[in-house]
């Protein structure tokens, strides 16, 4: 059960592969459900050139660790991984990775989606986009 905030671009596929090799026993998991959120170059009708992700250092980690523990208590899962970018991003950069490993698929699907919904609604991150018209805070939709 690992939570990481990353100040630099990361490769979600290499990250998952490395985590799996390091933390999961071969043959123990039958299901891996994964979500990757990626920065789009288009939002609310405008071309987006870049983005800055602000967060609340300390509370962010606590919150993500808290929901990871809740997921492990609620579903029969073997492990989870949450990685989230902070700082400046460019279009096509991965923003978030949520991965869940379990013996059977239902727990992995349910837990990964629940983690993403909790993260989107309550984890203290804020996006500021750069468009041709200047900077703007992204509204929660």
């Amino acid at each position, binding site marked *: 059960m690992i939570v990481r905030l990353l100040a630099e671009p990361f490769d979600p596929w290499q990250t998952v592969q490395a985590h799996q090799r390091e933390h999961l026993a071969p043959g123990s998991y039958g299901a891996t459900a994964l979500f990757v*959120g990626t920065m789009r170059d288009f939002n609310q009708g405008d071309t987006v050139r870049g983005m800055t*992700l*602000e*967060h*609340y250092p*300390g*509370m962010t980690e*606590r*919150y993500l660790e808290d929901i990871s523990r809740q997921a492990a208590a609620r579903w029969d899962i073997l492990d989870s991984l949450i990685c*989230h970018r902070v700082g400046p991003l460019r279009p096509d950069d991965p*923003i*978030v990775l949520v991965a869940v490993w379990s013996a059977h698929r239902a727990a992995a699907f349910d837990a990964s989606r629940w983690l*993403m919904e909790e*993260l*989107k*609604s*309550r*984890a*203290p*991150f*804020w*996006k*500021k986009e750069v468009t041709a018209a200047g900077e703007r*805070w*992204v*509204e*929660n939709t």
Partner: protein
Amino acid sequence: MTITVKFFASLREEVGMADLHIDGECAETVAEVWQTATDRAMPANTLMAVNQEYVDAGHPVRDGDEVAFFPPVTGG
């Protein structure tokens, strides 16, 4: 002892401060921390945390607490 007050994102820009300290005697609730720290009304959708846990505006505060105000989150 003092209370540490933090503002994030658009709220940080609106109040013009990232963080400050107020006298622990000046506020008994999170709402009173806001009133002491700023000269404006709290936006309706403001989220609040004491010591990095979500709370409501009526939550009590104590000397040494870290109180944070921020807009709806947009991560992920």
